[in-house]
């Protein structure tokens, strides 16, 4: 029996559970009755029809023509290259999930359904711009020049992994391609990107920083801190919010009571724009506009890319537990890959045969990369002790030597 505290009679002096009614502790949702209904039934997901709203920037029409007002004017070669990058991303997702199921890698967090948002926005950057990823942006990192082999090495945490086997899979970092490190705690990359862009502006470096995050991250402190600072200091930052409908099992409407995520920009004195995130042309258009604004010294933009997470949150998640598979079908019909493929068929003489050929060649590249990564040894024990500080301090050197040689015969460490 506890001697620390005598049990109190329940709910005599307290406001009791009634105090939890309505908005208390759940101010992000509507009236209590609605909360109740959400709790018993499956959580309600956003409807794809939302992207039809007038304020949402769109370009690729249902008949596979482009709206001239938002057409970014891409060449045929560019469109095909974008399609290839999207398909590579999808092939990667497919194979990496399989590898995880086979126990050959520990984890994968993919971008199924979000390829147009990720590849389109990365495409719209200039070579000098920097990319601060959330975690689903490997397609963008590859587009920026991170070699496929290095990405796959990170999935295995081997000796060739640029993060030297220290980070989880999909926690890549590739400075050469101007891609910074993934940081797991939600939202923390947002302020870093703002600071990066702000300092670049002070140094008169002509660059912008794009930072990716999910709509769930708009609840984090750093989202608000970042946008506020960016607004006050007019930093050249592009806030790219992937609104994919879900934060693990939490649907958008239980993350915010705002009508849109884009409108949060208003409070921080910067433009916020919604874009059909499954329309790569529209994504390129709005991201380019944001980069140009930044370059003109006009400051930041918040982009809400309206897309959908077709897969589970990660390989650790089974979405069927909270999202009946049928509710995903309307979004499958908005698959950004299928939409772009139809466009290619119509305007660029794309054929199913070419599609198959491309997929086969992407698959072959990947198989080779996986084979090489799997055959590569893990990082050496010694390597662990590097990079904690600029120089290895004596006590880490001692730990290292002890680990490599075994413990000292006498005394204690």
């Amino acid at each position: 029996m506890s001697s620390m505290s005598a049990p109190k009679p329940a709910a005599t002096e307290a406001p009791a559970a009634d105090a939890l009614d309505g908005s208390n502790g759940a101010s992000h949702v509507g009236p209590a009755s609605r909360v109740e209904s959400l709790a018993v039934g499956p959580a309600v997901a956003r409807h794809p029809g939302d992207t039809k709203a007038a304020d949402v920037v769109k370009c690729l029409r249902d008949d596979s023509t482009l709206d001239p007002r938002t057409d970014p004017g891409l060449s045929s070669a560019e469109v095909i290259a974008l399609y290839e990058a999207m398909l590579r991303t999808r092939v990667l997702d497919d194979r990496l999930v399989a590898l995880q199921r086979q126990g050959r890698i520990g984890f994968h967090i993919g971008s199924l359904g979000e390829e147009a948002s990720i590849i389109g926005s990365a495409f719209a950057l200039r070579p000098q711009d920097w990319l601060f990823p959330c975690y689903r942006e490997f397609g963008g990192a590859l587009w920026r020049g991170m070699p496929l082999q290095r990405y796959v090495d990170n999935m295995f945490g081997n000796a060739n992994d640029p993060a030297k086997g220290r980070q989880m899979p999909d926690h890549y970092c590739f400075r050469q391609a101007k891609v910074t490190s993934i940081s797991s705690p939600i939202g923390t990359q947002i302020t870093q990107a703002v600071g990066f862009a702000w300092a670049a502006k002070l140094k008169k470096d002509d660059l912008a920083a794009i930072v990716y995050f999910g709509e769930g991250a708009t609840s984090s402190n750093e989202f608000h801190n970042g946008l506020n600072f960016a607004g006050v200091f007019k930093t050249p930052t592009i806030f790219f919010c992937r609104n994919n409908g879900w934060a693990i099992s939490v649907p958008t409407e239980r993350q915010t009571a705002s009508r849109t995520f884009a409108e949060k920009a208003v409070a921080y004195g910067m433009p916020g724009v919604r874009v059909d995130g499954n329309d790569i042309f529209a994504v390129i258009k709005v991201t380019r506009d944001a980069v140009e604004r930044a370059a003109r010294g006009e400051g930041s933009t918040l982009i809400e890319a309206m897309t959908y997470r077709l897969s589970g949150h990660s390989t650790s998640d089974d979405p069927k537990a909270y999202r009946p598979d049928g509710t995903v079908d309307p979004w499958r019909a908005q698959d950004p890959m299928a939409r772009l493929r139809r466009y290619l068929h119509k305007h660029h003489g794309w054929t199913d045969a070419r599609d198959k050929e491309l997929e086969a060649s992407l698959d072959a590249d990947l198989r080779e990369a996986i084979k090489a990564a799997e055959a590569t040894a893990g990082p050496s024990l010694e390597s662990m002790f590097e990079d904690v500080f600029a120089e290895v301090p004596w006590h880490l050197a001692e730990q290292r030597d002890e680990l490599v040689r075994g413990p000292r015969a006498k005394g204690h460490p």
Partner: protein
Amino acid sequence: MSGPTKSVRFREAIRMGMVEEMERDDRVYIVGEEVGHYQGAYKVTEGMLEKFGPKRVIDAPITESGFTGISIGAAMVGLRPIVEYMTWNFSAVAFDQILNNAAKMRQMSGGQLHVPIVFRAPNASAKQVGSQHSHAMEHFYAHVPGLKVVAPATCADAKGLMKTAIRDDDPVLYMESETLYNLKGDVPEDPEFTVPFGKASVARQGGDVTIVSWSRMVHVSLQAAEELAKEGLDVEVIDLRSLRPLDEEALVANVSKTHRAVVAYEGWPYGGVGAEVVDRIQRLAFDELDAPIERVTTLDYPMPYNAKLEQHVIPSAERVIEAVKRVAYRSA
């Protein structure tokens, strides 16, 4: 323990503690990411949304500092919140609320306000989750006056400490371990069964060397003790259970019996709870010691992802065995 018991897994034992207290006291609610619809990131809260409804099992937006601060406020008005973090690692973004408000409200208000709240989550290493997800956070929190920190290793303690934590009128930080969630054990069904804070338990009796440990490392220490028994070393394993308050008496009594001690735990070697244990023993039982006390800790290095490297960084039974032999002056 007396009375009827039930064999459950560690995660169920935690849940039993919470559910019983929520049934007993309707001021108790739980909030966190994925605690409701998802049934908890590690299924600790399974069935609780259905049982208690969304007013008392609340899925929070992704802002640990937000729902921590909100719950501190709710506790000040008289509710008794349980705040779940998906892992203790993510409590770092709520650290200021815990350090500066939960821990100090009673003191700052001259005793006019207090914060009866429980913070709970899996802690320390899991398997291959990298440096940002492997922190042993008890060391940061146990440093703070005004906070109580507990870390059960058995199912019965998981239930009993949870109940004591909820009934306590001060902030309690409750440390779980992802690697223990499937552990099976008997727990008393008596709804008045609680485990007091500040009382260690003896996980294994022995006369030659004392290993002081908590949470997952108790099991690693027991494994080490079995190996050492084969070599004729009779090892006592102390499970601290409660890291603050700390059971000084048990430490002194045990070391007075074995005269040698090893402290085995997860967390970096610089400072921390283990160093505190060493300080107490050497200060209070100096004359009883026949050897310097050793610590077996996580290496002084951020956790790597690669499985082979990780193995070397997490304290292992092998390292515990080596340390015990050193304090017993037995060569390997």
